[in-house]
Structure formats: structure tokens, C-alpha cells
């Protein structure tokens, strides 16, 4: 864990230049595909992005002076499940609770941990299982109560409680000690490079302890944080409204107090066509785009289109390697070689994205395009099949999501595999049943869906490849792989972690744990008077509305 060049690694104060890029995650502006392992709680683990920047300001990289004021109206398909960061359940909740809550540690749009946007203005690691933190002082919750070390202790313990969605993420922290009003010590069960990144997700979002006392389980409809916006109202299925926090502690690079906007109103419009109609009619300022609509808005000079800087996880097919016939690795390889990833990307994503290699998505620090993927090669596919236990082909059941997108995608799989004599029996199902059959009952060999980006590569890797991973339904024991996964999590040096992830991914590709078809991007469109759109997709591809500004 300690490199030769940095003999005192554990004693040092982590500086910005040593900041490691954290993982990125999440699926944001509703790509047409829906990823099954996508949740919300893109958790994962993360590069120990240890890092400290001078505390205080500069929450936005915008150097020029941004206009302030105005109301931004954005559209999303459905309500959040809750705005309680710890107890909510939905993948779409983050966009809402991040407007109202700050995180103890936060990462910027590049996925780097960044103290200037965190409630902890500094953190250090005196040894591999201890983290000490210095908290920002003078910060108050929207209800007027003070933010301090006791509030952080309360929050972490709440995030570890039984009903918390972040419980699994936060279990690595075994003890939280308050040293003073603004100092804190966290003890970990073992070295964990992911933990600071995870504090940028649900588990590290800070709610007002007084509000928890006041609202109890109903905090999800009465959120109180320290964030840029104050919760105003939530009319279910209609709209969600937040107003500017006039006492917010952050400023941008030009010294302008944040946030820029006076109000953000999010209207719930389920139909994608109607969302776009609202944008064109001028009744909305921001809408997520499916890949198929991007070109139309790029060509319209009234609008601007923003692409997420990184891909939102992988889209492809899960394999249950414990089930016949795909317990035969040669058959899995034959399938991998028979699938033309580029053709599928072109057909279902209009070419927007990147053909898949391994489980780690394009644009993230652990992605490596030099890995030897299972490239499309029909002759090679036939050779592998001939050498398998099924030289004359076979029938295989594949379940998928019951949407037109997956219908089209699965038809391509069916067609491509028929060329090597494999007959796919495609069964479309609702997502709940899909998850149940593949990962709970484990009675289906193949599932076409995908896995959304996690905050740190450890999330993707542990959940889909570790022998006890929920999204690895075969659960075949693989000591070498498990050991590499644990080492990658327990190592704090990013380059070392990347080496481990390269090895892990190559094993996953060679053993065909799953078939990685493509990584898709998220898109958003807005009229040109919406500013700072480059800050819209956070370091996990989820919307960060609070960073936006609007010209009158």
C-alpha cells in the first residue's frame, strides 16, 4: 500500500495533487436503456481519493461572472421515492436530495474528491484504518440548527441503521468519535479505498438531527439539510420546488455567492414526447434526452445539448455460469464472439456510446481500452462452439426488460446467435420479475439488461464479479478473483488499484462472467439561456441542478 516514492504515505496530509479520481456512477438523464443493477445507491467503493483543498469556497469552476436569480423549470418522468438521503430507495432520488443536502465528502464532475465542495474542509489518514476530519465551521442547517461533529456522528450512525439504504455502504465504518465541535475521527474495519467516495453518496449526505427528531420517518417529505436550496413543496406527481438558501456557505471562483438560481421547480411529466414538447413550447428549461433525440436538438439552434462526461455503466447480458448450457465457458466465448457490439450500438443507441470491453465504464479512471476484449469474429465463434459441449448449437432462455428498447436489442442478439446455431428464447419481463428470476431465484441462464455506474469501481466489480456478489448469480467460487477484488479495495494508491482492476477485468472477459455490449452516455437539452450546463452531470452522471444558472 505504501509506495517507495511516498514512504510516509499514511502520515501525510493528502493534498489536491494527490487526489485520486473517484469512481463515477449513476444513470442520469434517462438513457433509453434501463440498467437492472442500477440503483440508486451507486455505491461501490472508491479510490481513496483522499484529498484536501483549502476550505471555504469555490464550489464551481466557473471563472466568469454568472447571472443570478430566476427560476429553472426542469422535467423528470417520476417523483423521487423520498428526499431522505438515507432512507430513500430510488435511483432518481439523488437529483432531489443533492439540491437540499451537502455531503461530508463530495466529488466534483471529474469524480475527484474535492474539499471545496464538501462539509469536511480537510481529511487525513494517520493509518490505513483511521480517517480524521476537520469540519467546516459556521455552517447551519436550513432549520437554523448548527452543523457540527455531533451532527455528523448522528448522521453516520443513522446511515448505518437497519432501515437505511446506505447501510451496506457505511458498514466499513466501525466507530465515529467527536474530538471537538469541528473535529472527527472515523475508524474502519479494514483498509477501504472506497469509503471516502461513498461518503459522497447517500451515506455521507448530512441531514439536520433536529429535523429527524421533529419529523421521524416522515423526513423524506420534509427534508432539511445545509445545501444550496431549501425545500419548499412537493406536490406528488405534479412538481417539486426548492428555493435559494440565502445563507449558503459556498462561493464560485469569481466570488459570487452560490447558488445562482432563486428557485428550481421540477415538474413530473412521465411521457418523453410530452417532455420534449414542453421544451419546444418554452414551458421547460431542461429535459433529459434519449440518444435518438440528440441529433434533432443539436441541430436546433435554440437549444444546447450536454453529454455526460462518462458512460453510465455497461449494457449487456448477465450470465449465470452455474446453469446449463452456459456453464460451459467455450459456449460463453462462442456467444461473445458472435455478438457484433458495434452493430448493436449503432442500431439501438444511434452509435452514441462506446462498444463494450469489460465491466468498467468508459470515461472512468479504471477504464482500460487496451484490454483484450471478446471481439466480434464469427469464424472464431464457430471454432469455440465446435470445441464446446454443444458443437451443433443449443437452445438458451434469455429474459429481458419488457420495453421496446430491449425488444429491439434482444432481437439483434437472437439474430446474431442464430448464425452459429444458437436459438435464443427471449422472454420479456417487468424489471421486478427480472431481478427476482435472475438474482433471487437464479433460475435463468441469461438476462439482457445492464449495470449502472457505481461511485467507485469496487461497487461494479464486487457486486457483479465477486463470488458472493448479488449481481453474480452463478456465485462460482474463484479465490484468485475474490482476492484481487479485496486487494483493489484495500489499496489506496490509484495506480495500484488500476493494475488490479485490469487483471480483474481480463479474468471477467476471458471467463465471460457477463457479456458487455456497450457503454451509453446520458444527455440533456436546454434553451441557450440556461448557463453552466457543463456542471449539470456530476461525477456520477446524475443531475446536479443546484449548479445551474439562467440568463433573464
Amino acid at each position, binding site marked *: 500500500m505504501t509506495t517507495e516514492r511516498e514512504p510516509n504515505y499514511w502520515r501525510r496530509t493528502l493534498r489536491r495533487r494527490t487526489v485520486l479520481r473517484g469512481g463515477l456512477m449513476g444513470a442520469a438523464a434517462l438513457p433509453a436503456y434501463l*440498467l*437492472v*443493477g*442500477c*440503483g*440508486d*445507491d451507486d*455505491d461501490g467503493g472508491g479510490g481513496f481519493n483522499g484529498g484536501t483543498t483549502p476550505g471555504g469556497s469555490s464550489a464551481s469552476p466557473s471563472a466568469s461572472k454568472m447571472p443570478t436569480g430566476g427560476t429553472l423549470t426542469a422535467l423528470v418522468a*417520476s*417523483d423521487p*421515492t*423520498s428526499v431522505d438521503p438515507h432512507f430513500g*430507495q*430510488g*435511483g432518481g432520488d439523488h437529483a432531489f436530495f443533492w439540491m437540499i443536502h451537502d455531503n461530508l465528502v463530495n466529488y466534483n464532475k471529474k469524480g475527484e474528491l474535492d474539499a471545496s465542495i464538501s462539509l469536511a474542509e480537510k481529511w487525513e489518514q494517520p493509518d490505513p484504518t483511521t480517517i480524521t476530519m476537520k469540519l467546516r465551521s459556521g455552517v447551519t442547517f436550513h432549520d437554523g440548527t448548527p452543523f457540527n461533529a455531533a451532527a455528523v456522528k448522528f448522521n453516520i450512525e443513522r446511515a448505518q441503521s*437497519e*432501515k*437505511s*439504504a446506505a*447501510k*451496506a*455502504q457505511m458498514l466499513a465504518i466501525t466507530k465515529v468519535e467527536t474530538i471537538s465541535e469541528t473535529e472527527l475521527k472515523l475508524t474502519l474495519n479494514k483498509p477501504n479505498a472506497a469509503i471516502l467516495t461513498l461518503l459522497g453518496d447517500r451515506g455521507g449526505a448530512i441531514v439536520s438531527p433536529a429535523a429527524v427528531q421533529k419529523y421521524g*420517518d*416522515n423526513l*423524506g*417529505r420534509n427534508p432539511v439539510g445545509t445545501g444550496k436550496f431549501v425545500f419548499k413543496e412537493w*406536490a*406528488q*406527481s*405534479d412538481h417539486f420546488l426548492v428555493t435559494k438558501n440565502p445563507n449558503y456557505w459556498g462561493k464560485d471562483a469569481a466570488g459570487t455567492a452560490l447558488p445562482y438560481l432563486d428557485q428550481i421547480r421540477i*415538474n*413530473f*411529466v*412521465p*411521457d418523453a*414526447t*410530452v417532455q420534449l*414538447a*414542453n421544451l*419546444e*413550447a*418554452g*414551458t421547460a428549461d431542461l429535459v433529459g434526452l434519449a440518444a435518438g433525440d440528440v441529433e434533432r436538438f443539436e441541430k436546433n439552434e435554440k437549444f444546447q445539448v450536454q453529454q455526460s462526461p462518462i458512460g453510465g455503466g455497461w449494457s449487456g447480458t448477465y450470465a449465470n455460469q452455474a446453469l446449463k448450457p452456459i456453464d460451459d465457458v467455450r459456449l460463453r466465448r462462442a456467444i461473445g464472439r458472435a455478438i457484433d457490439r458495434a452493430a448493436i450500438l449503432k442500431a439501438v443507441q444511434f452509435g452514441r456510446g462506446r462498444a463494450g470491453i469489460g465491466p468498467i465504464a468508459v470515461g472512468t479512471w479504471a477504464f482500460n481500452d487496451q484490454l483484450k476484449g471478446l471481439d466480434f469474429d464469427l469464424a472464431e465463434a464457430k471454432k469455440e462452439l465446435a470445441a464446446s459441449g454443444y458443437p451443433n448449437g443449443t437452445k438458451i432462455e434469455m429474459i429481458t426488460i419488457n420495453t421496446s428498447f430491449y425488444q429491439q436489442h434482444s432481437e439483434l442478439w437472437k439474430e446474431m446467435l442464430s448464425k452459429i446455431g444458437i436459438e435464443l428464447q427471449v422472454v420479456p419481463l*417487468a*424489471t*421486478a*420479475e427480472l*431481478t*427476482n428470476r435472475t*438474482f*433471487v431465484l437464479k433460475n435463468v441462464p441469461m438476462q439482457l439488461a445492464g449495470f*449502472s455506474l457505481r461511485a467507485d469501481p469496487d461497487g461494479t466489480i464486487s*457486486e457483479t464479479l465477486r463470488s458472493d*456478489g*448479488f*449481481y453474480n448469480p452463478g456465485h462460482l467460487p474463484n479465490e484468485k478473483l475474490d482476492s484481487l477484488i479485496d486487494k483493489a479495495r484495500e489499496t489506496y494508491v490509484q495506480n495500484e488499484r488500476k493494475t488490479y482492476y485490469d487483471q480483474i477485468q481480463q479474468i471477467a472477459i476471458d471467463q465471460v462472467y457477463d457479456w458487455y455490449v456497450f457503454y451509453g452516455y446520458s444527455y440533456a437539452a436546454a434553451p441557450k439561456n440556461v448557463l453552466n450546463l457543463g456542471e449539470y452531470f456530476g461525477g456520477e452522471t446524475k443531475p446536479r441542478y443546484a449548479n445551474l444558472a439562467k440568463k433573464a
Partner: protein
Amino acid sequence: MWRYIIQRLLALVPVVLIVSIAAFAFIHFLPGDPVIALIGPEAGTATPETIAARKRDLGLDRPLPVQYLDWLGSAVRGDLGQSAVTKQKITEALQDRFPVTLHLAVASFLVAISIALPTGIISAYKRNGPLDRVLTVLALTGVAMPSFWLGILLILLFAVQLQWLPPSGFVSITTDPIDCLRHLILPAISLGMVQAAVIMRQVRSSLLEVLREDYVRTARAKGLSERVVTLKHGLRNALLPVVTVVGIQVSALLGGSVVTETVFAMPGMGRYAVDAIFIRDYPVVQAVVLVTALVVVLANLLTDLSYAFLDPRIQYS
């Protein structure tokens, strides 16, 4: 009359009970572990204790009959429970949402009637003529056209191209009557057109039948104008089957509101059901089905009672 109403109301009890059992059973027998479905994509990171806690929390660890009776007991007392996902009280949510659906239903009904009655009468009056044929084709198109498709077309024309009306959303009549109307026009047309087509065909056929009756011939023989014969003598007698169809259309209206509210992003009861089904929010789905069933059976009762007003010969006993 009162005896009849009480008898009918009592007869509703088993109907509503059967509906409630069906609603309860249907949602519980859907494939998939309900708790995994509710936890959703995060199931992968949820610990077994979290899953068990959620199950206990939702009362899903108890036998089904116990769950049903418990739910029914609360429902009878007016407590429909709380959403499994948002924790919002369902009765409170329905108080917000029912008026939205009522706005849409009333507006669609007005659109349907104001199109169906005149066109049905004209069609019958000019039977087999070119106008009748045109109206028949239009009515068939109306019946065949999916309301969501018509809705999208209306949005693209009136909201995006002409920018006369807002593309979606809802404003209550008590907040701003004019804005309410502006938001209601497109969804009401989209939902009302389908109803209009069905009612128009019924008005036409029923009127044609009545116009062949002896008393109509007598009226004509007395020298009354065709207009007076059709409207005064024909229409009133032709309305009985039309009212029956209109009564049946209440359930179609509520069913249609599911789609229309979703397309036009109206926070009504139909949308509440759709959202709940997608996230497997059991208590909400059960409650909406129960309330919808109650509205439909009450609408049917009102339809039956209205016969006496239209035709004094009808006596209830």
C-alpha cells in the same frame, strides 16, 4: 323509491367486497418477491436484515388473509393506509388527486356530450345521406383512435406549433379558472373524443328506432315540423339507451384517465395508480382500485335512478 335505493346500496356491498379481494389478490399474486421489487435496484446492496425489516415494516410477513382483513378493517373506517414507498397517507393523497380526475372527467364528459348529441341527431335526421356518412366515418375514427395518440397530436399542434395552450400540467379551477380551462382543453378533447364517438353512435341508432314509432308518425300527421318531431318527441324517448351508455362510459372515462393523466402529466387518481403499479406500491394500488370500483358502481346506480326522471312510466319497487 327509497327502499329500492337501500336495496341497491346493500347489493353493492358484496360487489365491493369481491372487488377488494380481487384487487388484493391480484397485486399479491404478481410474480416476484414484493419486497425485492419494492427495494428495487438497490436489492444488491441491501443486507438480509434490511430486507427482513422492510418486510416486517410493510406487514408482509403475516399470512395473506390476516393482511387482507387488517386492510379491509382499516378501509371501512376510512383509513386506506400509507404508501409503501413515500409513506404518504393514501386518504390524504386521494383527497388531492380525486378532484384532478373529477376536473378531467367532467370536462371530457362535457366535450363528449356537446359533440355526440348534435352530431348524433344530425346523423339520424339526415340518415343515409352524405352528412350522415361523413359523421359515421368520423365517429368510427374517434372510436378507433387511441386517446394517447390523439393527445400527443393535439400537444404537437396546439402547444408546440401554435403555442396556444400549455402542453401539460394541471391548475385547479379554484386557483385560476382561466388557467384551469387552458390546461384542461387538450386532455378533455383527447379523452372526450373517444366517448363522443361511442355516444354519438348510440344517439343515432336509438333516435332512428324511436323515429319509426307510431307516436312519431302521429306527431308528423298532426303537421309538426320535422325539427320539433325529432327534438321534442324523438330525442327524449331516445335518451334512455343513451343514458345507459353514458353510465357505462363512466368506467371508460376513469380507465381513460389513467392514460390521459399520464400523457398530460396531470396529478390525478389514474396517474397515482400507474405510478404505484410501476413501483409496486401495493397499498396505493389496492386503494385506487377500491375507490374506482366504488365510483363506478355508484355511477351505475345513479344511471338506473335517472331512468325515472326521463321516463315517468318507470317505477322502482
